[in-house]
C-alpha cells in the first residue's frame, strides 16, 4: 500500500487513493487532498458535503452513494457534480478520508 505525506503526516492510502485508516484523517488535510483532486478553492458547500460524508460514514460504516447524497446532504446531485466534477461520491470520499463508497451488487 502506498503511503503519503499529507499536511505533514504520514497517511496510508489504497492503490486508488482512498484512506486505509479513516481515523488518520484530520480536517487540516482537506485543502491538500482537495488540490490533488483539482479543487483549488473550497466553498462552504464543499465543506458541507465533506462533513456530511464523514458523519454518515462514522454513523453507518459506509459512505453514501451520489443518489443518497443528493437526497440527504442538502446539495442536489447536479450541484454535487459542479462541486466535484470528477464524481461526487468518490472524490468527496477521498477528501473526507473514508473508504470508496460501494453500492451493493
Amino acid at each position: 500500500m502506498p503511503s503519503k505525506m499529507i499536511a505533514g503526516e504520514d497517511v496510508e492510502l489504497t492503490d486508488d487513493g482512498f484512506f486505509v485508516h479513516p481515523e488518520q484523517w484530520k480536517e487540516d488535510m482537506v485543502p491538500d487532498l482537495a488540490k490533488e483532486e483539482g479543487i483549488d478553492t473550497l466553498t462552504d458547500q464543499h465543506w458541507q458535503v465533506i462533513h456530511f460524508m464523514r458523519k454518515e460514514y462514522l454513523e453507518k460504516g459506509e459512505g453514501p452513494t451520489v443518489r443518497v447524497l443528493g437526497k440527504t446532504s442538502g446539495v442536489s446531485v447536479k450541484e454535487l457534480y459542479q462541486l466535484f466534477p470528477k464524481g461526487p461520491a468518490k472524490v468527496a470520499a477521498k477528501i473526507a478520508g473514508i473508504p470508496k463508497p460501494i453500492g451493493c451488487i
Partner: protein
Amino acid sequence: MAHQIVVLGGGTGGTLTANRLRRAYGQNEANIVVVDQNDRHIYQPGLLFVPFGLAHPEDIVRPRSRQLLPGIELHVSPVDKVDVVSDSVHLADGTVLAYDALVVATGAVLQPHETEGLTGEGWMERMFTFYTPEGSAALEGALAHFDRGHLVVNFIDLPIKCPVAPLEFCFLADWYFHERKIRDQVKISFVTPLDGAFTKPVSSRALASLLAEKDIELITEFNTGQVDGASGKLVSYDGREVPFDLGVIVPLHGGAPWVSNSPGLGDELGFVITDEHTLQSKASPNIFVIGDAAGVPTSKAGSVTHFEGEVVTENVQRFLAGEPIDGSFDGHSNCFIETGFSKALLIDFNYGTEPLEGHYPTDVGLPLLKESRLNHLGKLMFQWFYWHVLLPGREVPGIKSSMPTSGKKKPVAASSQPVP
C-alpha cells in the same frame, strides 16, 4: 388466542412466507392475511425474454390467490401505512389490520420520474424499459422494427432488481440480431454507472471479456443525469453524451411508497432498515422483512428472497413463541446470466464472498462464471421451479439457504506475495 400474522405484498417473498407459515401453524393457531394492491402475480424473470419473442406477457402472469394455500386470506388493497406503535396496518380502502407479527414483502418500485426527461418525449417510442409488462411488450414491437442503428442499454443507478438483467439484455440482443442476420447493422452499447461490467472484480472481469467477445461496447462510470428522447441521447452529470436510436433504460428503484409514509421504518430510498442476519426490522422486533423491500447489502433477486424465506419463517415462529431470534442469513444469492445462443453463466455469492469460479452447489454441479448449455437449461427450469417449488415454499433437497463453499475456487489475491 390465534396469532395474527399480516403479510404485506403477495409477490415472491410474501407468497412463499405465507405458505411456509400456513404449513407451520394449524388453522386455529394463526390467522394469516396477505395484502396486495392487485391479484396479478408476475414471474418477473420472464420479462427479460418478452422483447425477444421468447416469452409472452400472458404466459408469465397468474392470479395471486391461486399461489396461496387454502386458509390464507388475500386482501386486495394498496397499503397506506404501518403504525409500529399500535402494531397496525392501515390500508387505502380504510381497513385497519392489527398484527402480532408483520412480514414486509412489498418489493421495489420503479421511479422513472426521478430522471430528467426519461418519461418525456420519446418514452415508450424510442426509449423503453423491459422491467414492466407494458414496457417489455412494447419493446418487442420496437425491436421487431429495428433494422439498423445504435442500441443503448443503461441502468441509471443501483440498487435495481436482478442487477445482471441489463447485461443479459445486451447478450440476448446480440443473439437476436445475429438470428435476424443484421448484427453488422446494429451497434450495441452497455452504459453503466459502475467502474466495470459488474460490481465485484472476478465476475466483472469475466463479464467484460464476454462483452468484448460479442462486440458490445462497454461505457463505464456514466451517471445518467438526463435522457433526451427528442434527439436520442443520454447525458451524464459530468457532461458526457451517448447518442442512441433505441434506448433500453432501467429506471431508478425505491421502496414501496407506504414505507416512507410510516415513520421510523425506512431509509432514504424507502427500503426498510433491516438487520442483515435476522431480517428483523430495526424499528420493531415484531416486523420481519423479506425480498427487495429489505435494505440489506445483497442483490435484489428472487433467489435471495427464496433463501431469506427460511430465516424469516423461522424467526416469525420464534418471535411468537418468545424464543431467541436466529441470525443465520448470510446474504446468499445466485443468478443465472443468460448469454444468448442457448447458453448461460451462473454466479453464486454472499455478504462476504464475491462471485467465484468453480461449481454449484458442489464440485460436480453447474459450472460457475462459465458459459454452458446446462446453465441455460437451469435458467429455463427456474420458471417451473418458481411456480411449483419456490412459491409453495417447499424444501429443495441438496439446496440450503446458506452459500456452499465446497465447489468454489479461491481467488488469487492481486496483492498476495508468492510463498518463498
